């Protein structure tokens, strides 16, 4: 990964955790997604303040029996997949608390 990416959730989605799985509904086209355990961890941490590396180091790597580099690669792939559906955005800079999630996006 050449530059750090800071994931943040779209405000145009609905979400709720159901039995460990995160349900996400996109308001733009009513598409429903469900996220597995790892993706749910990423989703819950994606508030724009932490980079993917920081999220993997703090939340994902300690919980799974996998090498850090592999965990980071998988997480970045996952983040890009969520971003391709417009439910997660990836910023090149951290976003402060309370800022609107409509700023610059590197995944457009």
């Amino acid at each position: 990964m050449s530059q750090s990416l800071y994931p943040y959730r779209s405000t145009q989605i609905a979400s709720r955790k159901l039995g460990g799985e995160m349900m996400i509904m996109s308001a733009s086209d009513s598409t429903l997604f469900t996220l597995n355990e790892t993706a749910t961890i990423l989703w819950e941490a994606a508030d724009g303040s932490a980079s993917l590396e920081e999220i993997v180091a703090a939340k994902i790597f300690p919980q799974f029996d996998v090498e850090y580099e592999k965990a980071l690669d998988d997480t970045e792939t996952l983040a890009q997949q969520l971003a391709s559906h417009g439910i997660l955005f990836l910023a090149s800079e951290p976003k402060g608390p309370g800022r609107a999630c409509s700023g610059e996006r590197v995944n457009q």
Partner: protein
Amino acid sequence: MSALLEEMSEKALQLGVPLSVQLDLTYRCNERCVHCYLEHDDHGEMTTVEIKSLLRELADAGVFILTLSGGEIMLRKDFFDILERARQLTFCIKLKTNAILIGEREAERIKSLGVESIQVSIYSHRPEVHDSITKVPGSLHRSIHAIRFLKARGLKLIIANVLMAQNRQDYRGVRALAAELGVDCTLDPTVTPKMDGDRSILRLGADHATLREVFREEGLVRSTTDFCAPAPKADDGVLDSLPCSAGHNACYVSPYGDVYPCVQFPLPSGNVRRAPFLDIWRHSEQLNEVRSIRLRDLPSCSQCVHASGCTRCPGLAYMEGNMRGPSIQDCEKSFARTGIPSVNLLSRAAQVPRLVQIQGLKTAAAAA
């Protein structure tokens, strides 16, 4: 329902999670629809603070789909305050409205808050018919304007039409209007009794011939042959199934905080002003009774030829006097669909006193 949503509904059912809740914000309304089941006076609606507190409880209980309805939701001065809080809590929001108070500014606000869909009641494409049902002159025009504002902002719109005797000629026109506006359209053939039990408005419903006609309308049903075919014999799987999702993974909360299994099933099950929502959801005797009922527990319906294909609504049955009994409206729908009378209809027919033709009366009178 998408396969994934169905899967989530099943999971919610197993976990005992209320996946979907309808919350009526008010019973007040700016229309006076002839078939409406509500009484519109305000008897002490929940305050903004109470509703926001309830929203937190609903989110914590796992509610995902939150339908905000009424009455007319836009009559609440705090509507956008409530909606904003609901979206902060990441509910999937569906709105039900007549939309006549929605202008461009309101449409913009609804869009910015990420609402999933908006259902607007339209009873006819002809103003003279629609407005005579709502009793508000100009209401069709205003509702259609609002639909255009909302649609132009990329929102998902659904026109909801209730089939009645008064508008039975117009369901095709409403579908054509929906197509022209680029929105979805539903047709509900059920007029619901008033929540206080008054059944007088049922006389407004569509008659047998109209039901027969719409159930055979290409485009309304996927396959008329399949839709109108007699139901297969109910096996153990069907007999052990749940009559519907009311009280299982869905429920309804009134503007006064009353919890019911469904908006169409007014069985008082608790009040969120007196007990936490989750306590009511988990421990209400009434909800647990509803949850205990399987199709095989319905004395009449389990024996009926329509058992495996009927749309029986337990709420309508409850309003008829017995939540384990049949719902005459659904019996009539099954009959109109298949041409086969239900056990309930046959039983009622047998109970109607036969007309006795009195013969020889004239002769007897003359003899006297």
